[in-house]
């Protein structure tokens, strides 16, 4: 119940500034439309080796833009700020788990963004670019399951990474490194089909491609069902591994908290 209250507070806070909402929508629309035109110009009427066309890439772009809303995380900066200011000690006194609060805050933000960004992006994308229809009806449950897992992997990676702040304190630069690498390696800006085979093989063993690439592959139908199921198994394994690492590290870092030299 306490976590729901935190989530609700965050949700209300996210609706405070109307200009921010419009600004975010305008900015994201510009990015989405330029990306769509980029792929349309590149593909022309050609077809990629896995059957992808300019039309599929437009769907990929709209859904990728919409998904980016669901992958919004504030946990890294939240941990950094709490450690830097020392407010982490007060947060730890509260009778609820600190990381549970961070998770609830992020869920609150995402809940607000569903209306503020995700819906407008899909509507504008459908009107300006194309209606992003899923490859087949049977892919819907797989897409939904994969998307939930990818949100989990994304948040766990952010939280584990954020725990670094307990040692490094100042980690703005590290957050940027992670952000840029994730953008390239997850398939968010460019599908990994375009990567060299050797790099693609390596990436398929890492968790990043299970954030954007797998759900997007399911949505646009760029791969066979057997392949999707195999990759979903790997996705579940990564979710379990990261979850275990998160719970193990959580205990250790909270035990290391040092506030105002004490």
């Amino acid at each position, binding site marked *: 119940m306490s976590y729901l209250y935190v989530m609700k507070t965050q949700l209300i806070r996210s609706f405070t500034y109307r200009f921010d909402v419009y600004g975010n929508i305008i900015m994201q629309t510009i990015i989405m439309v*330029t990306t769509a035109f980029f792929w349309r110009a590149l593909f022309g009427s050609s077809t990629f080796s896995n059957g992808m066309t300019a039309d599929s890439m437009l769907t990929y772009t709209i859904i990728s833009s919409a998904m980016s809303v669901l992958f919004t995380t504030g946990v890294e900066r939240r941990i950094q700020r709490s450690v830097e200011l020392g407010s982490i000690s007060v947060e730890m006194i509260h009778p609820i788990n600190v990381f549970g609060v961070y998770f609830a805050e992020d869920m609150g933000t995402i809940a607000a963004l569903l209306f503020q960004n995700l819906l407008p992006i899909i509507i504008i994308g459908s009107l300006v670019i194309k209606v992003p229809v899923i490859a087949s009806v049977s892919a819907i449950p797989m897409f939904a399951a994969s998307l939930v897992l990818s949100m989990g992997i994304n948040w766990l990676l952010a939280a584990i990474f954020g725990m670094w702040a307990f040692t490094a304190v100042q980690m703005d630069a590290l957050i940027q490194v992670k952000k840029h690498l994730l953008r390239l390696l997850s398939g968010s800006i460019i599908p990994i089909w*375009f990567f060299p085979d050797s790099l693609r093989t390596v990436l398929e063993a890492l968790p990043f491609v299970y954030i954007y690439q797998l759900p997007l592959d399911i949505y646009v139908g760029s791969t066979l069902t057997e392949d999707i199921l195999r990759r979903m198994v790997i996705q579940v394994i990564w979710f379990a591994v990261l979850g275990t690492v998160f719970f193990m590290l959580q205990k250790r870092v909270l035990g290391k908290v040092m506030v105002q030299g004490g």
Partner: protein
Amino acid sequence: MRKLLDTLGHYIDVTLCNIKLALMVIIEYPANIAGWLISNPIQFIVGFATIKFVVVQFGEINGWNYGQLAFLYGLSVISHAVSMMFFVQGWFMGYSVIEGDFDRYLTRPLGVLYQFFFTTFNIFGITDLIPGIVVFIYGCIETGFRFTFGNAVGIIVMIIGAAFIRGGLYIMLGSTSFWTKSANDFGQYTQEIFDKSTMYPISMYPESLQFILTYLIPIGWVSFYPVSGLMGIETTVGIGSGNVWITFAVGIVVMLAAGLLFKIGLRRYESAGN
């Protein structure tokens, strides 16, 4: 005239002092320097890798080969680095507005906009220069670009103009905080839009978008038009190799417009808690 020169000299003195202070502040955190030295180049390596993967798959991008794209991207990153050093604070203007930081600036005998940008000089912007210069040199070698005196001057003029365009747009976006009273910074979005419109030739976009990027939000002048001029590539707008001077002029206009918007916005500044 003498008074003007004295004032200018005073501003230069203060700027040098601030740069020295900024250097001393960053030396305080050596690990942070190392972090930015790694993180900023990675951002552009990712961008360059993206271009590479796309070019490998599609051969060329709208008639531009890999060398030409490297040249375009390199110069774009260099102008980005310069804008980061001098104007990145524009991204965070909203925080200064809602936290009342302008109170201090308003009581000092120096221009408010000048103080806002130069009292927190961003020395880390230099770390963006490294990948920019590397990619640019690579582009020069690949395209066989000849470094004549005229070309060298053209490139410097272009970089200054492009940095002004970027900086002016940061100030304009930041100035909206005077009206919205919001601390939301659109820095990351702005960066992404700049990436999309300066690392690839804008001629690949539909005419309507090209029109917007040429006349309304003149990002096309940051890299596409001047680089086309330097490379001898024909464009629908511009005067060939003279495009670098148009970039400079556009930069001045954008910066003046941004300064005006900031000045109007500052009148609405209410200080913190009032």
